[in-house]
């Protein structure tokens, strides 16, 4: 099967992927002293803004789990990985055209490398989450539960979905250049269509089923499951199950499209 052959070729060159990820991180962190701060500053400030807007202006701090700030932080950190990866994979092949043209690597490397390096950034931002979690735990506002085991599952499902989406988007943008803009706009719309700043449970049926098709809905549900009490918003298992299925569908679709378009892309870049 195509997918198995391809991933075998990819793992055979695992060292190269690691080299590229290290290169990405080094470029990011070597460029400025504030390198690390930049990765966490964005989600932190956005969490703060949404917190102020919803709690103090709209007086609707109840649209998500309590503590709402922690709820926002989980959502925005994870969303940053998602949107950052999609923005970057959409130009992965074009930006590295010189390298793609001069090295005989499985071309999927260029996509997986982006997903991984953004993923490493996500993991590196976890101390911030832990810091606020510790504060809220100490204050008694937050309580952990056993569903915390779903957090790493969420990370894996997000990784798989992103590889699939990246493989889908990268060759298309290499062929049709304005796809990049379309993706930027879609991402901004998708942000509000995804339960990042509100709980997925608030979407009225039957429309909630539509939001389940977005794998991020289930992924956030998994990441939040163990961190909050579920008295007001019970865990939406339907969303979780759908996101697992969707991630596999996206991976298969992405692999197919990537293999189809690879030949044409190599000629164009």
């Amino acid at each position, binding site marked *: 099967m195509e997918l198995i052959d391809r991933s075998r070729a990819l793992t055979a060159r695992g060292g*190269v992927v690691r080299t590229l990820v290290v290169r990405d991180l080094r470029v990011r962190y070597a460029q400025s002293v504030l390198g690390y701060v930049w990765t966490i500053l964005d989600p932190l400030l956005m969490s703060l803004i949404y917190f102020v807007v919803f709690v103090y202006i709209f007086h609707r701090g109840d649209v998500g789990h309590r503590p709402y700030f922690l709820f926002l932080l989980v959502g925005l950190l994870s969303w940053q990985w998602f949107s950052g990866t999609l923005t970057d994979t959409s130009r992965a092949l074009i930006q590295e055209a010189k390298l793609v043209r001069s090295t005989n690597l499985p071309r999927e490397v260029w996509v997986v490398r982006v997903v991984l390096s953004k993923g490493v950034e996500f993991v590196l931002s976890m101390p911030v989450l832990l810091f606020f979690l510790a504060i809220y735990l100490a204050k008694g506002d937050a309580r952990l539960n056993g569903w915390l085991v779903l957090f790493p599952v969420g990370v894996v499902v997000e990784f798989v979905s992103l590889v699939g989406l990246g493989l889908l988007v990268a060759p298309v943008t290499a062929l049709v250049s304005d796809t990049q803009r379309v993706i930027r706009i879609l991402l901004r719309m998708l942000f509000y269509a995804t339960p990042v700043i509100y709980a997925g449970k608030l979407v009225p049926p039957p429309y909630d089923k539509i939001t389940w098709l977005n794998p991020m809905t289930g992924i956030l549900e998994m990441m939040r499951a163990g961190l909050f009490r579920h008295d007001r918003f019970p865990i939406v298992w339907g969303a979780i199950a759908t996101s697992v299925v969707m991630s596999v569908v996206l991976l298969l679709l992405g692999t197919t499209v990537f293999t189809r378009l690879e030949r044409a892309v190599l000629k164009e870049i």
Partner: protein
Amino acid sequence: MADHWSGVPDPADDRAGAPQDATDKPVISVSDLGIEFYRSRRRQLSLREMIFHGRSGAPVETFWALRDISFDIHKGEAVGLVGGNGSGKSTLLKMIAGVLLPDAGSVEVTGGVAPLIELTGGFVNDLTARDNIYLTAGLHGLSKDRIEEHFDEIVDFAGPEVRAGLDMPYRHFSSGMKVRLGFAVITTLDEPIVLVDEVLAVGDRAFREKCYRRMEALLETGKTLFLVSHSEGDLKRFSTRGLFLKRGLLQLDGPMDDVLAAYNEDLDGGS
């Protein structure tokens, strides 16, 4: 000097020697190869055109950049590729390097390839030259231990200016220094096949001479060389066998001197 990168137990002393054993399996086997390109770049397609002018606004006119190409190259051969601009030389080289995929026929390459194509492609402007050496060599599949082993050799080859600027961001390098570093890294890769795309024309004369000597040393260790060049001198110096491409078709495959003669005759006849 040659033993630094010899990985082949039986170096052919006579680099002019054709395949040492004609019954050997060829290291590069090309059969009925063809690749088709669009006349216009499809990247310039835009969604607007696609929406307003049907499925695609670009003319779908295509041409075969290469067609029905077949040849075998055996271990230790030095082959020069000759042809005018746009005859498909670089395209052929890229297909052998595996960075372009054929639309027809097949290319089979046994063993690794060290591509002297887009030499500076892997370097990152913001990192130091030292980091860049590790990263680029790593991208081409060299292990960390081997890079460390060859690090000094790479830097020595690239020249004293590069050594002085090792911890300087790569973007401050002159273009000559960049190419030297690229050449030094790629020729250190211990791959049995070396592909060269007109990079010998770079650098000052002293460096060019150094490149020539290294290429000869590579050939002496039994590596297979595939060379694209417009310089008759380079072609004669390194290659014993020539391939003459004209408008994507293989016109002649024979000894270098005959191929050059045919090429020159064709040029004179055409003008």
